[in-house]
């Protein structure tokens, strides 16, 4: 049983659109949330500008609890919560919630790691000039780490495309859904092949944009 390609292409295009939507929205939300958590994690570290042992340890523990859970299990485990918030667990929009939560913590770690590599002397110099902690965050930490930060977020974006395929299998739609339904359950290798090629292309585009942007901001 082979698919009729002339009518199947629109489905592929629709599925690609769903994947891109899931990834893009997740990326936006996860970047904002992850940046906030990552910054908080960094500034509350020992000896840092807003040192706070309680906040640091709590966030650190939270990240270490969420991060090791395999995404597909996280997805299922979170479904009651997803239903509570989104009203459903099926569809592209519903998939964005668990993806955002999982990705936020990954982004937070990436942000923290990049901030740690900033020369503490630069932060000290800003302090010596009378910068407040909030000013240091927005005028020193973020600009100084921006180049590597973009690369880190690009890396996560590629991971998100992977997440979206998994979300697809539990009703999230998108290319993952298509590949699983046609390729895996109906043994249609050609559909699988097409979706794989599209996924590869998406990753290439994401990496290209990420590299381009980071080069724009990387000054080292």
């Amino acid at each position, binding site marked *: 049983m082979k698919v009729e390609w002339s009518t199947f292409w629109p489905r592929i295009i629709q599925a690609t659109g769903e994947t891109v939507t899931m990834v893009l929205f997740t990326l936006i939300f996860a970047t904002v949330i992850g940046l906030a958590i990552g910054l908080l994690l960094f500034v509350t570290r020992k000896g840092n500008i807003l040192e706070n042992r309680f906040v640091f340890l709590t966030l650190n523990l939270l990240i270490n609890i969420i991060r090791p859970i395999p995404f597909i299990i996280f997805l299922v485990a979170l479904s009651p919560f997803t239903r509570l918030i989104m009203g459903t667990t099926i569809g592209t929009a519903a998939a964005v919630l668990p993806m955002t939560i999982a990705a936020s913590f990954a982004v937070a770690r990436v942000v923290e790691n990049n901030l740690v590599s900033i020369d503490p002397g*630069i932060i*000290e110099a800003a302090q010596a000039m009378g910068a407040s902690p909030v000013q240091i965050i927005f005028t020193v930490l973020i600009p*100084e780490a921006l180049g590597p930060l973009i690369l880190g977020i690009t890396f996560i974006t590629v991971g998100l495309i992977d997440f979206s395929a998994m979300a697809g299998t539990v009703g999230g739609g998108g290319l993952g859904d298509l590949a699983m339904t046609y390729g895996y359950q109906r043994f249609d290798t050609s559909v699988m092949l097409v979706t794989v090629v599209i996924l590869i292309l998406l990753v290439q585009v994401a990496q290209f944009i990420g590299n381009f942007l980071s080069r724009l*901001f990387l000054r080292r």
Partner: protein
Amino acid sequence: MITFQHVSKTFGSNENEVKAVQDVTLEVMKGDIFGVIGFSGAGKSTLLRLVNLLERPTTGEILVNEQSINTLSQKELRKLRSKIGMIFQSFNLFSSRTVYGNIAYPLKLAGWPKDKIDFRVKELLAFVGLEDKEKKFPEKLSGGQKQRVGIARALATSPDILICDEATSALDPETTEEILNLLKKINNDYKITIMLITHEMHVIKKICNRVAVMEDGRVIEEGQVFDVFTNPVQKTTQNFIRSVLNDKLSSQLYEKLKKEQRGRMFRIYFKEGVSNEPILSRTCKKYDIDFNIIYGNINELQERLFGSLIVEFIGAPAEVENVIADLEKIVVLKELVNNEG
């Protein structure tokens, strides 16, 4: 200008306790270029960071402009910091900002309007001689240029005080000279009080008027640079001074000279005033003996001369005695009996 009153700073607690600064009492006067010298770990870096409260004192009081800074609120502290410029050994420039952006940064923090920032940055770029580099990023600059940007950035808000954390230690000798000259110019032209820390006595000798020597968190010797150089009391101070004024012969050379000795060898200490009088030749002529200068070291410090010569007097012993007696009325003489003098 800056007063330390029995200031101590301790890091850590119990068995891991490190007493970085111990009971330091110092006063930096307005217009000083005050140098603090010590080996690494002596506590000088911590001492410097107490001035703008990058470190808080454990005990004791610090006054800046006659105002105690220990109890400042966060807001007052930020205001104080904008009046104290700081430069660093590793420059600490923002790599994400251009030269212009680095110098403009403290002005933006202070909320200056854009046109005033532009005027001030251009003025500072001209002062440090980097007009053509304003659009460059720090990574494209040499060490000396980076420190010039650091200096321009530190001066942007017209501070009364400039504190320098080993500002020349990462630079080659030639660039060090340039930066030291620039610091001297800042002190002279803008009447900015400078407090610097260094492990190089050369820096003290070149630009400071007052010096404090630190060891194990304590100030072990302090005074006018000229006085400390001409009359160092502590062993550490003497060693630091010897690093720039080598007035001691090597033991090999000393032994050689001893063997070839024809008369009596003396070390003659010159202080200012006498250095430009022909006392040696005049006195030796009077008693008709010869003198031979073996080794000499006369230095300029704070536009004053000082130093010593090792001189051998050759002639009739009685006449040599007369020469010594005459010279002792004017200068300090010490016969060289071993190589310690």
